[in-house]
């Protein structure tokens, strides 16, 4: 084997793509060629550097949390309605700062939406209805880079984002109240948890509520008015 041939086959060798006979021929050449040993060592060092490239750790408890959410997202139709407003809490940097709450006045005159901040609410929407839901965040100061993540249950879509169950973006918050309006489309009858997550870095706050989509009650529908 010549040096050029070895260097041509080097990647195949390191990728375990050579036969035993080809590997043996390469080893024989390497035993007598310092230049090629240098090339091999350099390639191995490069690959080692790639393998050692670190990845920042996932946030604390991510795996367990992700498994819980996967189970919850797929089993909410069987869940009893629980009352819970906040999950977890802001870490120190934000504890004194942002407060989230639902703006109760936006959910219509029937008060379908529970308004207590200490209780998980349930918002009822009629099938095929588009409901504008508003979330309000109060920031203690201007914040340049706050990540907003939405997790939608399968039976509901955010208008303009068909098929997307998870949407995230960065935004700025101004000191004081910041209102996020979400037009939600009810696709089919079901009940599931809607989650909004707001925060910076590892400091994130989650807020959840149930979205209950029901078939319209035909006994209460008004007949269309003539023009």
């Amino acid at each position: 084997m010549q040096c050029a041939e070895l260097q041509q086959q080097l990647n195949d060798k390191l990728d375990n793509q050579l036969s035993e006979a080809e590997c043996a021929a390469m080893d024989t050449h390497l035993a007598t060629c310092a230049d090629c040993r240098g090339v091999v060592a350099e390639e191995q060092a490069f690959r080692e550097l790639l393998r050692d490239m670190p990845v920042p750790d996932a946030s604390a408890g991510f795996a367990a949390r992700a498994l819980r959410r996967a189970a919850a997202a797929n089993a909410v139709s069987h869940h009893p309605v629980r009352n819970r407003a906040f999950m977890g809490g802001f870490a120190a940097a934000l504890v004194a700062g942002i407060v989230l709450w639902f703006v109760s006045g936006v959910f219509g005159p029937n008060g379908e939406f529970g308004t207590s901040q200490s209780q998980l609410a349930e918002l009822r929407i009629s099938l095929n209805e588009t409901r504008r839901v508003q979330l309000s965040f109060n920031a203690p100061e201007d914040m340049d880079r706050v990540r907003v993540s939405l997790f939608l249950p399968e039976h509901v879509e955010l208008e303009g984002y068909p098929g997307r169950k998870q949407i995230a973006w960065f935004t700025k918050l101004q000191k004081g109240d910041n209102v996020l309006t979400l037009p939600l489309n009810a696709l089919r009858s079901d009940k599931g948890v809607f989650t909004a997550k707001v925060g910076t870095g590892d400091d994130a706050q989650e807020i959840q509520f149930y979205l209950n989509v029901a078939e319209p009650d035909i006994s209460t529908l008004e007949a269309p008015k003539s023009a």
Partner: protein
Amino acid sequence: MKNIFSIWQGRKDSAAGFEELVAPHIERLYRLAYRFSGSQHDAEDLVQELLVKLYPRSQEMASIESLGPWLAKSLYHLFIDQRRRATNSPVVLGEEYGVEQESVACVNGGPDMHMIRQQQCIKLEKALFSLNFEQRTVIAMHDIEGYTLPELTTMLETPLGTLKSRLHRARAALREQLA
């Protein structure tokens, strides 16, 4: 009452079965998701969405012999779908798919070696995210995460020859930027 109990028992088994199947793979999936997205948050979001989608498929997953590569393939396709949806969306969602490179460090070797390797790692990570997505994917899955080429032919649905040439070009581009 018996029926209610049975339903509850079934749900418990389903959750436990899913967790048993998937939990050993989450860390690796997260790492791979980070290699795709370049952001801790996006990587977590991607893995979360994958788990939500796969939860109803526990039975199917239980019958898969090599679940790790199958999960990695699912993650890859989900990421592709997300990119496609983001590209087609009429609304730009800020930096959703931007590379948000974290400050991370290599930890091998003594102090001098540590510094050199750390500098190399930073350069290499920047170089990696400058590759096109196909090249970055094959480097991430093969050279970094250790999936074999035969596994990748199935996972990426790409012929072996194409994968090899992609790897060759990607490594050459990385070396050039490291030089």
